[in-house]
């Protein structure tokens, strides 16, 4: 049915077969010499294999086990994170916020999908979705409950809405019983949701 979806609005309608349209655009840009498909492959590989929450987990594990690094992380997260080799787009201006027994931090981007790519990778669908973006600021405790995270009423909830180019990383509380583990073992305890703030470890 080739006439169901005429191209009348420069691509602002949901396409009938977006996979074909994307393929056509890529072919067009390659034909015009504007993109190199091998560069596209390298970009995909970068985001599928080089960045991801294991990077952030290393940062958190180091903060748990190295008090001087923790201080540097809380004072200037961008520089401290760069010590571990993590930098790049969507991580230009990092701020680390630390959970304590009395304070819980939760990160959102109500306006779009801002997320600290170098330490957490690309965001999950739910983080970019309307339900999370709308309710994280008005009902953070309800949102946390949807993730199975119940907070005592006397725990203060601090929500960080990423409205500029500052990106937030939650440093979760170290789980009880983790004393004596080395950094690699500690990093294995750290989850993506723990570093967004929707989960506690």
């Amino acid at each position, binding site marked *: 049915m080739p006439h169901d979806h005429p*191209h009348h609005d*420069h*691509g*602002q*309608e*949901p*396409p009938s077969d*977006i*996979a074909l349209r*994307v*393929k056509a*655009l*890529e072919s*067009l*840009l390659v034909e*015009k*010499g*504007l*993109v190199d498909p*091998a*560069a*596209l*492959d*390298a*970009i*995909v590989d*970068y*985001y599928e294999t*080089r960045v991801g929450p294991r990077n952030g987990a290393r940062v958190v594990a180091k903060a748990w086990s190295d008090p001087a690094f923790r201080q540097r992380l809380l004072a200037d997260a961008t520089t401290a994170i760069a010590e571990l080799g993590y*930098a*790049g787009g969507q991580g*230009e*201006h990092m701020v680390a916020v630390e959970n304590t027994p009395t304070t819980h931090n939760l990160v959102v981007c*109500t*306006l*779009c*999908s801002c997320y600290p790519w170098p330490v957490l990778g*690309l965001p*999950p*669908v*739910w983080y*970019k*979705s*309307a*339900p*999370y973006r*709308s*309710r994280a*600021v*008005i009902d*953070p*405790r309800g949102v946390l409950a949807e*993730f199975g995270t119940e907070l005592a009423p006397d725990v*203060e909830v*601090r*929500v960080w809405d990423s*409205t*500029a*180019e*500052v990106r937030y990383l939650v440093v979760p509380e170290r789980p009880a019983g983790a004393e004596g583990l080395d950094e690699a073992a500690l990093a294995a305890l750290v989850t993506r949701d723990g570093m967004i703030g929707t989960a506690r470890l």
Partner: protein
Amino acid sequence: MNGVHDMGGMHGLGPIAPEADEPVFHAAWERRVHALVIASPTRGNIDAGRHRRELIPGPDYLRMTYYERWFAALCAMLLQGGAVTAEELASGVADPAAPKGTPRLAPDQVVPALSRSGSYLRDTAAAPAFSAGDRVRARNRHPTGHTRLPRYVRGRTGVIERCHGAHVFPDSHAHGGGEAPRPLYTVRFSASELWGPDAAARDSVSLDLWEPYLERA
């Protein structure tokens, strides 16, 4: 602009549905869209790109997936920037008369480019008007262009937590008006100031807001 993208504080948009063991991308075309947005010519600056996605009509914006929005905005920006014509976009075939371009990003440039941090901090002579601890009110303004001042804080009073120095100002940058750096602050609003007396008394929401968004309270 008061678009549907400005979602903070809305109800009724459905349950949050986390997916167990979610892949980075859900389809091969999503991979290519993500890469094309990064590699394309005339993709504009980050603020222009965000604004282009905000310009997707609200009913479409809500219905589309994230990468469908990215693709729609990419096509619009390629057209606007003159990298492709409407005829080429519709047919998928390059105009044989058009000159051949040069890719902006070569394969061996990808990893260095992606792992290098730029900065949105700029030197300016002007001192910031506010300092930590100052009480400020978010201005009650409703610009029709791009802004990063969400509706849910307009007219509300908060406290400056810190100044990040002068950052590129999206309201200008998105519209070709240059970087126009302005002091950027983290401003903390109590939940009760934003949402009324039923909100948890000690909870708060902090946003990063540029000086033109704020007035002394």
